[in-house]
């Protein structure tokens, strides 16, 4: 009985992780003036996925230090401030069932910065003192700036915009 319970618990955890794994579809054909190399394309898709997974985890745990791996500059400072305030207010945001339609629109001539647009969809839950006070299916557009780091692309700017 104890084994079954543990298995069920493990299964729930795995399902929760799977549910929270962002789905990212990347299109790079419209990027200019520099064409996006296939290796870069794979890195961007991988690292953007990881960044959103990290953001969701950091938000769930109100832990700004988790942002270090995939966020830098203005994006990191902004989200870190929000997470610190979350901790104070006992509130946090859940990003569930994420889908991101990512399009590279600008890739700098020297390859040191890329701008992307993300048509994102996710279920946003705002939790206060363990109670969901807001549950919404969000469809929103983001402007994203990514720059290459030592072994990955990191998000420098992640800004939701009303229209593009």
């Amino acid at each position, binding site marked *: 009985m104890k084994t079954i319970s543990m298995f069920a618990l493990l299964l729930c955890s795995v399902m929760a992780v799977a549910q929270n794994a962002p789905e990212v579809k990347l299109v790079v054909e419209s990027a200019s003036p520099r064409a996006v190399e296939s290796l870069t394309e794979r890195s961007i898709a991988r690292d953007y996925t990881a960044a959103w997974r990290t953001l969701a985890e950091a938000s769930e745990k109100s832990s700004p230090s988790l942002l270090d791996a995939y966020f830098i500059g203005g994006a990191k400072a902004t989200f870190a401030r929000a997470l610190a305030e979350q901790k104070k207010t006992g509130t946090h945001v859940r990003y569930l069932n994420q889908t991101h339609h990512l399009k590279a629109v600008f890739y700098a001539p*020297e390859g040191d910065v890329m701008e992307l647009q993300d048509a994102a969809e996710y279920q946003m839950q705002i939790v206060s003192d363990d109670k969901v006070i*807001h549950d919404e299916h969000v469809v929103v557009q983001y402007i994203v700036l990514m720059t290459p780091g030592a072994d990955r692309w990191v998000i420098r700017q992640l800004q939701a915009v009303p229209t593009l």
Partner: protein
Amino acid sequence: MRRILIASLMSGLWLTQVCFAQELNVPTQATAGDTLSIPTSGNGEATFYLVGPGSSLKQTVHLGQAIQLSANDLNASGRYVAILCAGACTSSHFFVVPAGVSTLSFLAHPSRALVRQNDAISGVVFPFDKFRNLVIAPVTVNFQLTANKANLFSRSMPTRFGVAWFRSGSWNSAGMAQLTASVNDISAQRVLQLVASDPCNLRIKAQQVSKGILVETDPVHDCSGNVVPDGTIVSFTANSSNGRSTVDAPIKQGVARAQLTPAGAATISAASGVVMGNELRMEVRP
């Protein structure tokens, strides 16, 4: 039964009142760094939450009074959710858009370029407001390249999705140049060093000395007349009955020198990069 019906109607009425009381009248859009006043209706206390990209606010408010949000609460551009809870919760969202351009993030490449090279210089500008939000609304960026107070290049580019860029060939004259990007009275500058290109018309002269032949170039210039920088390597080669020998010598103060030890009839030449110099034929005395 009648009492239950009346109680049900009363509680329905009460619930309706609560729902009305929790209406939030948020604007669809605000500007980063502005204050905002959100009117509420009803009476009693409620808990107000504001969740945005850079803030998470929770405070007790009095229904019927406006909720005041400070500039600090709304300085990050993005999507905000406002929630009002008094028993049940009601919510609404709005966007905060960036304020005016305050700083420019200017990426210029390279910091050192050869003269007369096509598409050698590029610059990328991202305009930001004072809260480090990327300004998406189009603005015109003026790019300018100047050297010795002379305007070498100038171009105006509107931003598209918050970015403007240019690419240009380098100028003919070596020296320091200043690359400037500006939006209205806000500007960012980068210094660019233009250096001479490959040597052009490499010419050598030689004279016999006690330990062989001393070969030296005329002052080495590129095809635009710029002095080729010191340290550029010139390779001197001598072919004679002793065989072939090569000496690499760096340019110092515009001239490269080397000593060769051919014997008998010798042919001496010089090259730097892909450029060949003239050939000298000499009879070397023992």
